[in-house]
């Protein structure tokens, strides 16, 4: 048994919310995906199994719809609306991203559905929130991200290059995280009250509060951060943290050494691999190692000695990186107690020994394709109520008969 086993979710198919449905399904919820008879458009998104387009072969759809059941329903017909009401009467959660007035026009808004099912938790995920007409304008992950703040913070030191939006519909993901958190909150509240509620999730608002210093610097003292290559946007330009390693891969040096102990370990590591000679700044590393008490970080850039010590720390990391592979730099620094990361491509982390040792990859049977496919695994590990992909994503309408047995009998 897992935690959401007795929770039924009705999801009106949309690429904007499919990840929220997956988060629920993978914790055991019975997620019924309602699709038009033509199928959700994301069934046609590449990449494809064996690069061959076809029914049940979109890896995009397979990923975002694990564990769900699919039924086809035309909400524009009276019959479709009646079936939808039947389903709602058995449901705990309605997850949708329709235009703001659509369900109301069909007589299927929360006011009506809540009467059928008082425990219903209705989550509407829209670009700017349910009360904002802008929500009904066309938008993609890219335009929502631009409006919500992330690209302003991301890109390169060279500001003649455009701001960058990260790969992979991360804007949708952020909205889906909030949709799921809201549902869990409402389920905990329902335990005491017995009542559901309506939840209005704004995608652009979700992005606005997911930009760290980009927002709070402005909120606190009206300062504006500037994007910088591979590191935090900041009001001032800061030292680079991305270093090129001997194997042409990059690593992120993270927070450079800033405690005497870290300077000491870095110095010792350089000694060990014979790099102290030929590195004139080593003397500052030694000073850092012997510093009395914690550094006053606010003095970086003002106090000459502290500045020299910190610059030497950064330089030392760069020097070592140029001599070793990104992976060796990562593990070597970490073993010296420095928080450094190899910049992996997605498939490299998937095959990394640590992730394999923890069993991050999971196999999902695809009997229709005659094979099992390795998927990314659990984002969190709840031993008493585990995350699991219960089954592959559904074929279009695969569960019509199961979900609507009367209709099948008619």
């Amino acid at each position: 048994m897992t935690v959401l086993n007795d929770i039924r979710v009705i999801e009106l198919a949309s690429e904007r919310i499919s990840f929220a449905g997956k988060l629920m399904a993978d914790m055991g919820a019975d997620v019924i995906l309602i699709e038009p008879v033509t199928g959700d458009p994301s069934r046609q998104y590449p990449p494809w199994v064996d690069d061959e387009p076809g029914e049940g072969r979109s890896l995009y759809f397979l990923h975002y719809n694990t564990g769900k059941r699919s039924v086809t329903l035309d909400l524009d017909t009276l019959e479709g609306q009646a079936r939808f009401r039947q389903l709602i009467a058995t449901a705990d959660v309605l997850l949708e991203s329709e235009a703001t007035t659509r369900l109301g026009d069909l007589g299927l808004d929360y006011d009506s559905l809540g009467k059928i099912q008082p425990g219903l938790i209705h989550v509407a995920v829209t670009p700017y929130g349910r009360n904002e007409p802008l929500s009904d304008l066309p938008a993609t992950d890219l335009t929502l991200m631009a409006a919500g703040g992330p690209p302003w913070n991301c890109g390169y030191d060279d500001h003649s290059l455009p701001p960058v939006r990260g790969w992979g519909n991360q804007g949708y993901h952020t909205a889906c995280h909030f949709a799921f958190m809201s549902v869990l909150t409402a389920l905990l509240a329902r335990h005491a009250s017995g009542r559901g509620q309506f939840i209005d999730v704004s995608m652009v608002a979700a992005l606005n509060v997911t930009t760290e210093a980009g927002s709070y610097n402005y909120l606190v003292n009206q300062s504006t951060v500037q994007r910088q290559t591979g590191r935090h946007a900041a009001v001032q330009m800061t030292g680079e943290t991305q270093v090129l390693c001997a194997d042409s891969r990059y690593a992120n040096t993270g927070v450079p050494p800033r405690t005497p102990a870290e300077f000491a370990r870095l110095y010792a590591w350089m000694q060990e691999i014979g790099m102290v000679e030929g590195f004139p700044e080593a003397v500052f590393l030694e000073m850092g190692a012997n510093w009395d008490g914690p550094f006053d970080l606010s003095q970086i850039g003002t106090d000459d000695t502290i500045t020299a010590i910190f610059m030497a720390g950064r330089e030392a990391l760069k020097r070592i990186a140029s001599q070793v592979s990104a992976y060796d730099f990562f593990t070597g620094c970490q073993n010296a107690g420095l928080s450094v990361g190899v910049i992996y491509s997605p498939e490299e982390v998937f095959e990394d020994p640590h992730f394999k040792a923890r069993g991050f990859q999971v196999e999902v049977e695809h009997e229709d394709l005659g094979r099992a496919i390795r998927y990314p695994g659990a984002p969190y590990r709840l031993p008493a109520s585990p995350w699991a992909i219960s089954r592959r994503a559904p074929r279009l309408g695969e569960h019509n008969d199961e979900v609507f047995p009367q209709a099948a009998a008619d």
Partner: protein
Amino acid sequence: MSDALSPFRICDFTGQLAGAGATKWLAAFGAEVIRIEDPVMQGRWDILRGNPPFKDERRGIDLGGAFNNHNVEKYGITLNLRTDKAKEMLAGIIAQSDVVTENFAAGVLEKWGFGFDAMKAIKPDIIYVSNCGFGHTGPYKSFRTWGPIVQAVSGLTFSSGLPGREPAGWGYSYMDHTGGYYMAMAIMLALLHRQRSGEGQWVDLACTEAATTLNGPALLDWSVNGRAMRSTPFNSNRAQFNKMAPHGIYPCRGDDDWIAIACRDDQDWAALEGVIDAPWCAQFATQDSRLAGEDRLDEQIAAWTGGFDKFELQARLRALPIPVAAVQKPAERIDGDPATGNFGLWPTVQQTAMGAVRVDGQPVHMSETDWRANRGGPCLGEHNVEIFGRLLGMSADEVDRLQQEGVI
């Protein structure tokens, strides 16, 4: 209002954003979140305490703007866990808590004598949620991370950038924010499980694993088709799945001003072409021709957008309508965009030392149990008298004495 989570008490060791962001959500919905801080280090295991941004010329351990932002509506107490008395007091608090949270490196809580088994002995159905970069098992369990390191190792840094250049990555700790969201989910899932079964558990959240799931389609393209992103050049501003072109971020008139434009199909393109109204458009009439010539198309679009003010152009393209949005600077999206203000996204809290200051609100509204944000992040030990009095039955004099003895 705000009582969705009021039955729950969280004994909270979290710091920074990856942990504090999680309990910020719980506090917003009424959970009693009690931050435990170290009086000897002045709470500096959370490096944000006392660090910029500052509201005015004042500096100090209670004046950090980021700390305040991430700790709205929480209580703050101090315990010097080097002393037996403080450990005894902590045990007293755990005995009355539903959840213990932390985002230290693996093993820190255990070293203090408060591993999961010890906590279970104090409170049999305790929920313990730990959030660290690589989790509590596996070869890298002792490795240390913060947001950018999680992003680097998980593939998210690599997958953000322009072709032929080093990764652009994320200009903020996307995975501190998002690690916090997963931690909040984990806490609430464990609470739901306990409501049904009466059983607590230890949730081991590895932030790098949560992050890796966010590139799902790329991982399947690898595991099924053997296609590696490392050897497939990409421009992350372009569309990844459903094909769209143009689909990018283009320059506008003005200082570092940009606009995002997407054409989902031929209809969007026809509408855009009507506004551009130039002969070069003809060669891009079909989706295939736009995708095949996307580099040239992007150059033409950029040359065209460069003549416009970004908000003026946004208004014109919204009227078509096609997907468009100005790349908004902080001032533009916080004070200039009525949609965020109307949503109530930037509440003003009262922080005891800083005074009135605006913070990130929550991007959702719940019709019955909405969130609240009134009280700012706690000053160091601000609630010692209240919490030790209420939970441990101590008098103000006793609390005062413990402070002089260095216990709190």
